[in-house]
């Protein structure tokens, strides 16, 4: 049995999803000779630390009842620096202005010899190459499948399964909120404002929807793709962004009559990064509805490969994180 010690920094929907999936997969992991021990969990109010392994069920219950996992006031970054463990699961909220606290957490993790698995887009959109170099210089893994496409394994597909291929272009739908809004507007012939309200009531859209509907979230994900797949050193400013807030139900109806659907498409092609509403032929693999995400990768050898799946959700995102954790477990020497 190989024991790997993990900290979960950030205990919101994704952090709790990771904790839950570690509990539910305990038997599966044991059969593979893997013992994942969570030695530290932190949220914005404090933390729980137990170097012999935290009782995850109790921690989840306390979070539910008290709104925080905190037993002590030590911060996430102190767990990273001072508690001996192997992998930091960095799942604090995305901050696109300066990347904090995720950026500091990741720097400290690499600085103190720990692998990083994350769903946090901010630090990757702002300082991708620095973080990647820091990981490489210290012989550590930096895994971020959950940052783009939720459960959809875009980076694993490209870097592992399609190894040897040259990626010529990528286009995809990477924001479930926009996809839900456009699908509903088209199916129900409802105006944008009404569908947005409905999406907010259902929890698919934030109270302030700007980040999603103006294409910012999609653009950030596209930047991470550009940096990871095309080594572009791109930032948000390099993306030409148009949102969906000006789209009318009539436009969708006209598209529909001519066998098209309108989707907010992210596109990395010929060194250009674009997020814009696009006409997608109805039978095209990109024409997925509801909150689904999809990515289509054009390669020189394999041709076009398209994958779609759930782009958000606590357990779905945890799936990508668990897969990254297991990648490290299987590939690290320690």
């Amino acid at each position, binding site marked *: 049995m190989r024991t790997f010690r993990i900290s979960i920094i950030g205990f919101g929907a994704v952090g709790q999803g990771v904790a839950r999936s570690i509990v539910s997969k305990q038997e599966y992991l044991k059969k593979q000779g893997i013992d994942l021990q969570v030695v530290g969990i932190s949220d914005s109010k404090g933390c729980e630390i137990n170097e012999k392994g935290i009782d995850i069920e109790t921690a989840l219950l306390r979070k539910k009842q008290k709104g925080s996992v905190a037993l002590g006031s030590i911060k996430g970054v102190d767990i990273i620096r001072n508690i001996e463990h192997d992998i930091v699961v960095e799942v604090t909220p995305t901050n696109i202005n300066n990347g904090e606290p995720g950026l500091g957490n990741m720097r400290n993790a690499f600085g103190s010899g720990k692998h990083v698995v994350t769903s946090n887009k901010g630090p990757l959109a702002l300082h991708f190459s620095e973080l990647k170099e820091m990981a490489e210089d210290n012989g550590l893994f930096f895994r971020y499948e959950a940052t783009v496409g939720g459960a959809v394994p875009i980076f694993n597909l490209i870097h592992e399964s399609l190894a040897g291929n040259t990626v010529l272009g990528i286009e995809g739908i990477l924001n479930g909120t926009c996809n839900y809004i456009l699908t509903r507007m088209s199916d129900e012939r409802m105006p944008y404002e009404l569908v947005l309200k409905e999406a907010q009531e259902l929890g698919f859209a934030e109270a302030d929807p700007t980040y999603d509907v103006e294409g910012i979230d999609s653009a950030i994900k596209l930047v991470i793709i550009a940096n990871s797949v095309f080594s572009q050193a791109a930032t948000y400013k390099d993306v030409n962004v148009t949102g969906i807030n*000006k789209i009318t139900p009539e*436009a969708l109806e006209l598209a529909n009559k001519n066998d098209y659907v309108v989707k907010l498409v992210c596109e990395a092609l010929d060194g250009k990064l674009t997020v814009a509403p696009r006409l997608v032929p109805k039978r095209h693999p990109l024409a997925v509805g509801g909150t689904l995400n999809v990515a289509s990768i054009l390669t020189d050898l394999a041709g076009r490969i398209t994958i779609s799946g759930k782009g958000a959700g606590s357990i779905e995102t945890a799936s990508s994180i668990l897969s990254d954790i297991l990648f490290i477990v299987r590939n690290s020497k320690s």
Partner: protein
Amino acid sequence: MIVSMTLELNDIPGQLVLALSPISEFHGNIMSVIHQHDEKTPRGTIPVQIRFEIDHQVLNKLIERLEKSGVKVARVGEERLRATVSVILIGHIVHSDMGDTIDKIDSTGFAEVVDMSLSMPGIDKTSSSYLVINAVGEKELGTALDIMRDVANKKDLLMIEPIHMNSVGA
């Protein structure tokens, strides 16, 4: 643009190269050549049918060059408006002079707006329209799209184009 041409060659060696090389010199892309050596014309020449893509601006020069080198150009047929694209425009389409928008494409000579549907839900609401633009070739279609983007930008219209990678292949 795509051009199909029937040439008549003299029945002596080296004539086919003489006919084809000017096309590549003018950066034409030869798509097919039908050379029927046993089917002579009453004039004793050999007919060759060629289909190629070429910039419309150099076509006349090409014909001149062929004739000068002794190749008879018996027929020139242009396959017009072969490439097509659909776009959607959203905004104050009518009040920003729809005629002018269409004219910007039609006046190019190599592209035309061949279909248009318009939806105007109310006087104070934004309109939506679906346009089909045809052009003589893919390159010209790209130029027409550039023009349309520029017009949309100036008139504050949202232009929705088809996905790009579709045309790249696969």
